[in-house]
Structure formats: C-alpha cells, structure tokens
C-alpha cells in the first residue's frame, strides 16, 4: 500500500519537485507546482498523524536496511504533530504567496524563491521525521542553506547582510551540532537515536559526553534563537520577503525546538541530563531572560516586522521554559505553545505582508489609520496580538494556562509570576500597534489604500480563525500534546 511509503514520500516529494521548479521557471506554473506539493505534504502528514495516534510509533527503514546500519525514519506523536504544523503552515503560506512574491521579488528570481522554498520544506520535514542524528544534520543544512537564500531575496539591501549574518551564526550552530554528534559517535559507535538512547547511560559520566551535550545544546539553541544566541533573528525576519518571514517564524525555529526536545528527552532520555548537568537551570534562566529582554526590545521597535521578530524570541523563551520544567505539564505546555505560537505568528506576519503589499513597508507610522483603511487585515493582526498577550478564547491563553500550571506544580511560583509579567509586556507592544492603527488618523498626504486582495486575505483569516478555534476548543490539541509529553518522558522512541 502506498500509505506505508508515506514517511519517505513526505520528504522525497518536495525534494524531487525542487529541481523541476528550477527547470520550469515560469512564475505562475512554479507557484502552482509548489502549492500542490505543499497541500500534498499536508495531507500526507495528517494521515501520518492519524496512523501514529491509532497505532503508535511508525518506523520506516530506508532501503530496507535495518538500523543501526541503515537510516531509519521514526515518527512518534511529537514528530507527527510537528510534521502537521510545518506542512500546514507551508500550505497556508503558499496559498497566500503568489501576489506577495510577485510584488516583493523581481520576476526573474521568482522561480528561485519557490525552488528554495521546496528545499527548505524538505529539510524541515526531514529533520522532524528522521531517527538518525547525522541524517538530521544533513536536513538541517538543507533547510538552513535554502533559508539563507530566501532571506537574501528581500528587496531591502539590508536583507543581504541579514542573510550573511544568519549564515555565519547558522553555520556555527550546525558545526557545534555536528561536533556533538561526532563525540557521541566516538563514544557509542552509533548515530541512530534509539540506539544512542540505550547506549548513553553506560557512557554518560564521561567528559566527552558532557562536552557533546554542551556542543549540541549550544548549537541547537543558536538555530532556535534562544537568548542570547538570537542576534541573527531580528534582521533576518525584518528584511526577508514577507512570505519568508511568515514561513520561517512559524516553522524553522519550531523545528529547532523539536530537535532540542529530541536530543534532551530521547537521545539523552535515559540519563536525566537535566538535573545532573544543570542544563535545566541554564535553559530556564535564559528562557526567562529571553521573555523579558526580547519583550522589552520589542516595545522600542519602529519597524513592525522587527517588533514581532523580537516578540518571537520572547515566545521561544516561553516554549523553552516549558520544556525546562521537564515535567509532563511543562513539556506539554512547551509543545502546545510550539503549535499555538506557529499559528498566531503566522497570522501576524501574513497580515504584515498584506500591509507591506499596499504600503511598501511596515513601520509604526505606516500603520496610522489603517484600522479603517484595511479593516480585515488589521482585525486579523489584532486577533494574533490578543493571542500573544494570552487573552481567553485565543490559543495564547491555552499556552499560558498550562505554563503557569507547570510552574506552580513544580513549586516555582516566582516563575509563574514572571510568566504573567511577561504577558503584560506583550500588552504594551501589541497596543502600540492597536493605537497606531485605530486611534491615529491617517496622515494628510496619504495615498489612497485599499484592502489586500482576497487571495491573501483568505489564508490570513484561516490562520486568524485557527488561533481562535484552537483557543476555544483546545481539548484535541492538548490531548495530543499531553500524550506526546507523556511518551517522551516515559519511553522515548519505542
């Protein structure tokens, strides 16, 4: 049956289509192709999630080679959930992309964008599904290299230096990761995650493994932009084409978080690295610093894309904070926020893309009076903003609820207080936008602005409504997250 080949197809499909896109070149045709691929991967990942929820972990041996000699694709609940997030975001973003890309990227380079997008998608899906730490590195590089190119396609010349900076930082991160992998290989002789997990306890006390963990953590934290390793992110998000920002903000950092989860809770699952090596305290303190410092930075930004880029860094802080409790509730809070934040940030950045299409750029000043001139776009952005604050009936509320609960369960009430204080900072930066759009009159000499085209509004509103829907009915997503957290803490990949 074809469905048994889905795990491979998921990755191979976008990978094979990328060169075809390169050959076709016609912007419209390439877009159609990419759109088709993204929706197909979305369908496949949904079906995979169903399979995993029904029948447990899927193991797919590439070429029939048994691990640890061959490469395995392993899909458990967390992985399947992240796959759905990535492919869903990709398909929504692609549905939206055509007009925005035509506007922001010169016509002769459009096919390049779609090719890179497909490659990036391949990489992100591959990272999520693979059960092999080296194979993960390969996919990590595929996604990173293609995202450098996508960012550099931004029309602002500063996009080039932003992409360059990301390239440097990203390469350091990947290098650290591969050094860590090498050390683990040296000590255990395997690259398969499940295998590593069983062999790790025997060698856990060695300095080499401790060093490996340090390299892995720092490398991954560079990719997921945990404070203070976030420096590449604000400019990359601010100057990349709007579509790229929306896609990367919702997926790339999330997948990096997923890698962190995999390394800590699967590969090092048997050795409780958290408590033993103080990783817990380190991650927790940096996460809290991320929440506060990045939120404060966000308050002072005039470029709205930069503002929400800083907000992303703060939100990543929340996710990492959830993981660092290493409890079921905490881990579930992290996983659910990974999903929730992907939805709301995607909505916000898609909204900013609409504004960018009409206004040419997105600073606070450009937003004056937009509340009446682009009512639908602004309303969607406000919904995303309310969700960032954590107002009830939005997804953000669900995340905050579980994060606070996790902190209280762990007996760390000061952290619970810090979490809610962080939300208060979000009120400030979100309300700067609200006031600019609704309470400032449009400038006298403003050119007439119409609402964004329907092809962009529709995907935007799908995301905005999703951030309400999954906030009102969070039982399904939460039970997946709780299940996933449970299986991560008590059993690993098997």
């Amino acid at each position, binding site marked *: 049956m074809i469905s048994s080949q889905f795990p491979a197809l998921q990755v191979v499909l976008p990978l094979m289509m990328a060169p075809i896109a390169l050959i076709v070149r016609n912007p419209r045709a390439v877009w159609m192709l990419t759109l088709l691929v993204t929706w197909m991967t979305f369908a496949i990942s949904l079906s995979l999630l169903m399979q995993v929820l029904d029948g447990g972990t899927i193991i797919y041996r590439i070429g029939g080679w048994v691990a640890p000699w061959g490469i395995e694709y392993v899909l458990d609940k967390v992985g399947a959930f992240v796959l759905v997030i990535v492919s869903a975001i990709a398909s929504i973003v692609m549905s939206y992309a055509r007009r925005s890309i035509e506007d922001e990227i010169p016509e002769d380079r459009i096919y390049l964008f779609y090719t890179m997008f497909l490659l990036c998608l391949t990489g992100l899906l591959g990272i999520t599904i693979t059960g092999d730490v080296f194979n993960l590195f390969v996919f990590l590089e595929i996604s990173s290299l293609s995202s450098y190119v996508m960012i550099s396609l931004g029309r602002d010349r500063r996009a080039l230096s932003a992409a360059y900076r990301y390239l440097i930082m990203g390469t350091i991160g990947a290098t650290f990761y591969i050094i860590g992998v090498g050390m683990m290989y040296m000590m255990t002789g395997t690259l398969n995650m499940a295998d590593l997990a069983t062999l790790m306890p025997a060698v856990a006390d060695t300095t080499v493994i401790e060093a490996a963990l340090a390299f892995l953590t720092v490398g991954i934290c560079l990719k997921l932009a945990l404070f203070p390793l976030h420096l590449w992110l604000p400019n990359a998000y601010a100057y990349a084409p709007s579509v790229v920002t929306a896609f990367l903000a919702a997926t790339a950092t999330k997948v990096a978080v997923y890698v962190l989860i995999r390394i800590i809770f699967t590969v090092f699952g048997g050795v409780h690295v958290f408590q033993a090596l103080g990783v817990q305290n380190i991650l927790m303190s940096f996460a809290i610093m991320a929440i506060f410092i990045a939120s404060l930075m966000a308050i002072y930004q005039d470029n709205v894309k930069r503002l929400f880029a800083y907000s992303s860094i703060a939100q990543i802080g929340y996710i990492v904070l959830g993981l660092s409790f290493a409890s079921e509730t905490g881990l579930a809070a992290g996983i659910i926020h990974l999903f929730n934040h992907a939805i709301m940030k995607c909505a916000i950045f898609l909204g900013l893309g609409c504004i960018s299409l009409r206004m040419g750029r997105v600073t606070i000043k450009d937003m004056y009076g937009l509340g009446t001139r682009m009512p639908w776009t602004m309303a969607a952005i406000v919904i995303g903003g309310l969700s960032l604050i954590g107002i009830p009936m939005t997804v953000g509320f669900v995340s905050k609820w579980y994060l606070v609960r996790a902190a209280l369960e762990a007996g760390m009430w000061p952290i*619970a207080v810090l979490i*809610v204080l962080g939300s*208060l900072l979000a009120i400030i930066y979100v309300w700067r936008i609200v006031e600019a759009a609704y309470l400032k009159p449009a400038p006298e000499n403003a050119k007439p602005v119409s609402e964004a085209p329907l092809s962009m509004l529709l995907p935007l509103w799908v995301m905005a409504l999703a951030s309400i829907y999954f906030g009102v009915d969070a039982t399904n997503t939460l039970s997946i997250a*709780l299940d996933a957290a449970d299986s991560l803490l008590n059993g690993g990949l098997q």
Partner: protein
Amino acid sequence: MSPEATIQAALITPLIGAVLISLCGRWPNLRETVTLVTAVILFALVISLYPHVLEGVRPSLVVGEMLPGLRVAFTVEPLGLLFACVASFLWIVNSLYSIGYMRANKEKNQTRFYVCFAVALASTVAIAFAGNMMTLFIFYEALTISTYPLVTHAGTEKAKRGGRVYLGILLSTSIGLLFLAIVWTWMIAGTLDFTPGGILEDKASSTIIGVLLALYMFGIGKAALMPFHRWLPAAMVAPTPVSALLHAVAVVKAGVFSVVKVVIYIFGIDLLSVMANADWLIYISGFTILSASIIALRQDNLKRRLAYSTISQLSYIVMATAILAPLSIVGATLHIAAHAFGKITLFFAAGSIYTASHKTEVSQLDGIGRRMPWTMGAFAIGALSMIGVPPTAGFISKWYILHGALDSEQMLAVAVIILSTLLNAGYLLPIVYAAFFRKTQGEHGEAPLPVVIALTLTAAGTVLLFFFPGIFLELARQLI
C-alpha cells in the same frame, strides 16, 4: 421554553443583536430599533428565569470542554440572576437614553458604538451566568476588550490616554493576579465550579488561602479596590451612556459580582471565617470608601466626581462581603442593584446637562435645576440613594450592611459607613443645592425627550426599589 434553552437564548440574543446592528449601520432608525428590541428580548429572557430560580432550581448549560477537564458552563443562581436582571433592564433604558444623547451630540461611529455595547452586554450576561471560574474569567476579559473601543470612542489624544489606563490596569490585574489565582485554585482544588460552601475546604493551608484571597481581591480590578482604581476615572472620557451603563452598572458590577461570587462559591464563607483572616479586606475597602469620597469632594468635573463616588460605593459591597455575616452578604447583593439604579440616574443627569448646556463642571451648575427640573429632580433622588436616605433603594442595602456589621461586631466597618454617609452628603448635596437655590445663568431648556424619559425611569426605579425591595430581597435571601 426550558430554562436551559432560555440561558442559551439569553447568551446569544445580544450577539445576534450586534450582528444585526452592524448590518443596519446605514439606517440609524432601524439600527436603534434593533438595539431596543434586542434589549427588551434579553430582559424578557432573563426575567423568565426568575420563577425557576426562586423555586430553588439552578438551571445549567454546558457549552463544551475547552481544556481537558475544564468546561465552559453556565449555571443560573440567585446572585447571577439578580445581576443579569439589573444589567439587562438598565440596558433597555440606556438604549433609549443613548438615542437621545448620541444624536443630540452628533457623535461619530455610532454603529460601532451600538455594536460594542451589545457585545459588552453579551459578556455581562455570560459573567452573570458563569458556572465556573474559568468561564467567568473568559467573559471578564471579553468585557474589558469590548468596552475599550467605547472608552476611546472620541479618538482624541485624551481618549487614547484614558484607554491606556483603562486597558492597562484592567488587563494587568486580571492577567497578573486573577489568572494566577485561578490556575492555582484549579491545581489545588481540581475543579473551578462554583459550589455553595466553596471548593477549597481541607485543600490548602491558611497561608495559601490568604494569598489566594489577596490575589483574587486585587486581581478583580473591575471592583476598583485601591490601589487599582485609577481606570475608572480614566474611563470617564467615554460618551456618557457608556459611563452610565458600563462604568456604573455592567463593568464595575461585574467586578464586585465576581468578588461576592468568589467569596461565596470558591472560598465559602465558613472557610474564610475560620481559616483566613479576612479583616485586612475590611481595612482596605474601608480605606477605599473614605479616601475615594474625600477625593470626590475635590473634583470639579461632574463625571469624575461621580466616578470616585462609584469607587467608594463599590467598596461598600466588598466590605459588606468581607464582614462575612449573612445579613451583610444580603446587603452586598442588594447594593449591587441599589447602586446600579442610583448611579445610572446620576450619570444620566450628568449627560443630560452636557447635552442641553455643554456644561461639565460642578461649578457651572448654579440654578440649572430651574431650567432642567426633571433632570435635576432625578439627580436629587439619585444623590439621596447614594447617601442612603429613605425613600430610596440605597437606604435598604445600607441598612442590611450596617445590621450585618453590628451583628458581627465589626465596629470599624460601622464607623466607616457612618463617616462615609456624611462624606457622600458632602459631595452630592451641594450640587443639588446649587442647582435649585442659586441664581441661574445661561439660556437652555431640558435635554431631548428620550434622555428625560430614561432618567425619569431610573429615578422612579430607585424609589420603587425602596417600597418593593422584595423582588431582589427574595433572591438575596437564597444566598445564605
């Protein structure tokens, strides 16, 4: 219609109203008819639950599960029904008033105004009927968000600043303190359902109960307990119908309603009187009563003076609840209704004066009673109710509060009530005196007819509640 279906209808009606209003935006007459009809239907639905509740039935409705183990659910009990009755009845009157006020003052964006109003009322009814603390919190926040556009209605720099304070304080207290308290309660008790007798018995130490109580009391910022009261004067920048219905009735009453609800159904009166020392709440609310009255004395802007008066009157309810005596709880409940009628009358009068003469300051009101006899007559009745003089509703509620305080020998509370009565008289009666007995100035008549009708109705209500307190008293008695 079954009570369950009625609850459902009562929750949905204002929302349908909001949609229809926004569709009728181009035809003002139709739009305002829709508002009025929606308000009347809502009131009819709410009042139809009254006999059931009086018989001891507690109809409830479960909408669905939001988080695992936490459902969005509604239960109608006496306190909530009383609040819903008051709010939905006054919405009818207020809609009438709005028509006169908004048209006479040529306000912009009237459709948005009426839509937000309907959404705010939907949230209010949902708060009143909330069956657990999470449901209450959801609509508590919805009320904050839906009233923000009303506060900043004018769109001026001043409105923007007012809106900032409004939203800043209400959201910070609710997210920073109340949210924390709710999650904590859920973790300790394993449930958030409003249960007679409370859900925290034998679940936590008295220290934790004390901390939780503080988180709840200050977290419910809408109750305007000092030092989180500044949002209320800031909200006065809104058009007067908003100040009248929302910032004298719906929003602030949602605050004190939540306070009473938390004390009765989350902590339980018995638990609080045994375990936690709730005396500090009496001190804080007593301090709020007195200092807000003193600040009110010095306000020249009429609406600001009324706002500080509201802060002080809200703390009556908090203090009465904190006394934890059965009679004072009855008093607190009655005061929700009594103050609502009295204060909305006062705000109506303030708006009426503004509409007819564009006067906003107390010092400009000399002799205005002769030009606007209806308005100032109603104002006088409202003022008497604030002070607690018969024959007005304020007397009844104050009587019960005082009785409860004496019963439980809370002499400090008694002293506060007596002192504040003097202060209330001090900041309200001079206005009445100046209006009727000083020399008149300026040329203008009464406000538009709908405005006058509305304020006459609420003034009449204030007096009627004195003679027929039964309707609310029966409900309040069921609480203890």
